[in-house]
């Protein structure tokens, strides 16, 4: 089994790590870049296939050279075997479409064709959730999204998954697809190990990859657009059909807005409130 997990580096939005300036803009320089949290779920799902069915797990990302450490994190904390970074200036400022094109080409450039490719649900910053499905579209593979659990039948060459219908926890269906197949792991994905042998494998593999993470660069391959034979016109900024017309700051959360306190038993004090609300009642 060869599985590949797609990942992106995102600002570490956790309390104490993230830093915003006075206007509420993210200070990228002061905020560390980490592996997108949802991608860890995807990587855990991929690791489960390795523990149960053997094989190996690769981690692939398109991004700046700084993403190397994100990939190392994936090896140290979520036990990826080898790492691929697609990186050069031409790939910069890509939207989801151009990112998908690039990553799909990266996947096709691997020596061994993957049986499964995993993407996270969505990123903590871009949050579109498009990149996975678009990459799959480029590959022309079947896709199963919102996946909660997986079982692989290697002999039959199929994967069976439990997934959320419409992303809603109240409805779960089981589907089966031939491999190779694209999987978008839901954040609710929980790997399960009900066999002692699986847990023992898990322990061995975890220790093994954690040791390797110290020398992660020995297991890292970096490809630029030339290695992938990609036309700069179709990737990066030039290949991105998305036009950002403007960026509006998100309003402060209600609890942080300024509030005027009014004692409810003073009739007069309530007058301005009524004045404020009347136009809405009238439908204006």
């Amino acid at each position: 089994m060869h599985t590949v997990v797609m990942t992106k580096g995102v600002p570490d939005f956790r309390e104490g790590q993230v830093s915003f300036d006075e206007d509420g803009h993210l200070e990228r320089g002061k905020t560390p870049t980490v592996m997108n949290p949802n991608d860890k779920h995807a990587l855990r799902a991929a690791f489960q296939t390795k523990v149960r069915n053997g094989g190996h797990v690769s981690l692939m990302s398109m991004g700046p050279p700084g993403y190397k450490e994100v990939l190392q994190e994936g090896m140290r904390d979520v036990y990826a075997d080898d790492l691929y970074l697609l990186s050069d200036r031409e790939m910069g400022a890509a939207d989801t479409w151009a990112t998908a094109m690039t990553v799909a080409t990266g996947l096709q450039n691997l020596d061994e064709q993957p049986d499964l490719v995993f993407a996270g649900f969505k990123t903590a910053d871009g949050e579109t959730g498009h990149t996975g499905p678009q990459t799959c579209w480029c590959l022309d593979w079947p896709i199963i999204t919102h996946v909660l659990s997986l079982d692989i039948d290697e002999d039959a060459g199929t994967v069976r998954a439990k997934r959320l219908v419409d992303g809603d926890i109240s409805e779960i269906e089981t589907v089966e697809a031939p491999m190779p197949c694209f999987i978008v792991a839901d954040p609710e994905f929980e790997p399960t190990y009900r066999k002692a042998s699986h847990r023992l494998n898990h322990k061995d593999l975890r220790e093994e990859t954690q040791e390797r993470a110290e020398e992660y660069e020995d297991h890292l391959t970096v490809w630029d657009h030339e290695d992938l034979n990609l036309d700069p016109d179709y990737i990066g900024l030039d290949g991105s059909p998305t036009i950002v017309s403007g960026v509006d700051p998100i309003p402060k959360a209600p609890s942080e807005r300024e509030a005027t306190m009014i004692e409810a038993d003073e009739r007069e004090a309530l007058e301005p409130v009524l004045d404020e609300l009347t136009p809405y009642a009238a439908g204006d």
Partner: protein
Amino acid sequence: MTDAVEEYEAVVVGCGPGGAAAAATLARNGVETLVLERGVDAGSKNVSGGLIYAEESAPYTIDGLFPGFREEATERPVTENIIHNIAGDKVKSFDIGGLHHHDTAWADAVLRRKMDSWLAQQVHERTRETGGGLLTEVHVTGLLRERGEIVGVTTEELDPIKADMVVAADGVNSELARDAGLMDWEEPEEWFQGVKAVVDMEPELINARFDVAPDDGTAHLFSGDLFDGVRGGGFLYTNESSLSIGTVFHLDSIAEERAEPHELLDSLLTHPLMAQWLGDEYDEREYSAKLVPDSKKAAHPSPHKDRLVLVGDAAGQMQAQGPIIKGMNHAVTAGALAAEAFADARARDDPSQAGDLYEKKLNDEGVMDKLRPTGYRVFGQLGELGPVDDLSNAIADSAVGRFGVRAAAGLLERAYSSPRLVSMIPDTKLPYVTLPTVIAEELGEPVTDENTVSPPDLADRIGDLTYDVGDPHIELVDKSFEASGTAVTACPVSAEDFGGGCYRDEMVQTNGSEEHLVSLDTQPCVECGTCAIVADTEWEHPAGGKGVEFNQG
């Protein structure tokens, strides 16, 4: 997607000293061995006093099975053992080096988290080579049976597992021994309850206050009138940079006297005798508690059934040799003997003989004699008969008795040091309370030091422990005070008029009448096992990795 039941040659449940010894010996014999431990780490659930003995007469010792054990996993070697007889502030100390050194190759103080997790690492490496290995955070819930016969184990976290041999090394509240019908949790007389504080102390201070070399340590034991008449005693052992101070009492006595275990511990901690060792700064690292079986009554003479063998506390193999407590060493011996028995049986192509062979080895190697000494069966139990006990107490306390104590001071010290005599001691007030008190009154000198220690209260002690709370693992079946009220006091993390513990009692008005009821909150439970015996409960251990986590042990 295979649904076949997993099979190992041997499954060992629990990785305390008994399980570790069994697993290491199985692995040495090339037996494919899976070890299942419920703690986040081996040792995270375990408490002992902790003096681990290596007996010269024992066929197996822990350092024999695990070279490097003393260097890597223990605290200080203990070469001196003093018992203090206490009456008020009067103390008479006897050197019981004779008993301590009798049949002893060495004895080291240990802290269980450190000791067991080191052992577990070794066990994993060795069993992994056999195709098995050690898994933590797996709670074994019971026995897997086929046509009524034991063939493996069931767990909360894994699918059922089959094995040619199941070693229950799951400690004092063994769910497997209970499931097999080999042990019950009924009689408080069969158990002790141990409670312990680990107190932080700089190594240099320990060396100075106990007058020991940096790589040497000491043991002090305590008995007399400082425990409100509850039958049992106290201990103090020196670790590398801490002291283990605790108490061990007969559970029936704790129940009868409605004693509060934490207060009994505090009576020891605040006694003037302790001032010289504790000084002014008292920093308690951890409070802990656990039941201890009394082998004299609980050791199972035939601890096996079908493919199941019981070792260590699970089989009641915990010897109270007078004031000296020997559980870990016997667990090691039994674990290794059970493994040896399986290897022998397998060599004869009949693994089903393992249980019988194990029983035979326990007898042939003299283990059963130590656990259930003949002397106790003849004299000790006689002494426990009510009238005899009353009479002996009265004599010891009489003018004649007191004269005898004065006249025989040297003899008494020797008697305390005699392994044969202490093995006959009856479980009565006489040896635990009356005699030490009379000895101290007649022969002792008052201690004048002022003890300024004020131990943390129960709420703080509970607050300092680490818990990962799972679902409640104990169900209170009979809520009446009559059936379960003893737990309010006997539970080491509960107390009368304390709302923050596990057990509480309250008067409830129902239809005009008033009922005295007990309620239970398992959140602060330290899984000591007491209420499995003194209250009417459905008692199980929490799920793997859940519940209390001891860092010292």
